[in-house]
């Protein structure tokens, strides 16, 4: 089980990193900046911390892998896509509600909404990869989709 969890975590982490770079780093970054108050020196620039960023992606992937393997029995790409979308939507919503509660960061609801939708899509894809790997490395049937 440990090797399966690690392999699924690695696959999910790579998808989080690669798709996250394209989606947030290239496509959405210039758009989301318009909806955020800019504080000089607050963000790590010109690059994010390249130790913490992949670790963050791996921890999120491990959370999915653990929930799917231990509890949900999700072991197909489509099953992971659905379950990941639900989990990531709730996780992103919690995070952005905390931003709204504690930080003067977002200028209005548009940026938050775009960020939650994009995070949900990213999480769904990464979770699909996690579940696919769990399925490939496990011969017992999935218990839920």
């Amino acid at each position, binding site marked *: 089980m440990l090797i399966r969890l690690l392999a699924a975590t690695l696959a999910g982490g790579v998808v989080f990193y690669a798709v996250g770079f394209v989606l947030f780093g290239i496509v959405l970054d210039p758009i989301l900046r318009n909806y955020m*108050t800019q*504080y*000089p*020196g*607050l*963000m*790590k620039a010109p690059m*994010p*911390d390249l130790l*913490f*960023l992949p*670790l*963050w992606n791996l*921890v*999120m992937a*491990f*959370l999915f892998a*653990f*929930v799917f393997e*231990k*509890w*949900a*029995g999700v072991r197909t790409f489509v099953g992971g896509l659905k379950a990941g979308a*639900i*989990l990531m939507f*709730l*996780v992103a*919503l*919690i*995070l952005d*509600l*905390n931003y*709204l*509660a*504690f*930080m*003067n*960061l977002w200028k209005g609801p548009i940026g938050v909404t775009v960020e939650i939708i994009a995070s949900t899509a990213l999480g769904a894809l990464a979770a699909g990869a996690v579940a696919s790997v769990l399925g490939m490395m496990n011969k017992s049937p999935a218990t*839920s989709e």
Partner: protein
Amino acid sequence: MLTRILAATLAGGVAFFVLGFLIYGLVLDPMFMRPNLTAEATKVMMEVPVWAPLVLSNFVSALLFTFIFDQWAGIRTFVGGLKGGAIIMFLNALSIDLGFGAFMKLYNGYTPFVFDIIGATIMGAIAGGVIGAVLGIMDKKPSPAAE
């Protein structure tokens, strides 16, 4: 099932709110977080939190736990919820703090991150216990998950 999910979410949301006030509002924020904020982060943080998103965040956190426990994990006891809540919250807090560490100069040093993860894990464990207990009270079927 819907009534059970709503009741557990409500109980968990209240637990998250009260525990968050006790752990973060009274202890961690004044002792470890605010004193270690960078000059840049001091400008972005609010003096007083905005209540509506704060309360909503607690209930969405409770809904996340309830959904996982009820739909997938079959957790219906306080101890089961304690363990499940600790695992989910530890991983979630770790990922959030790694995200902050990746993109923002939020704190001077790593001590606030460590205390945040410990505090969040304790809060998630107790709130998870409450959620597991409420799910158990409202469901007479035996718990399928290993506790």
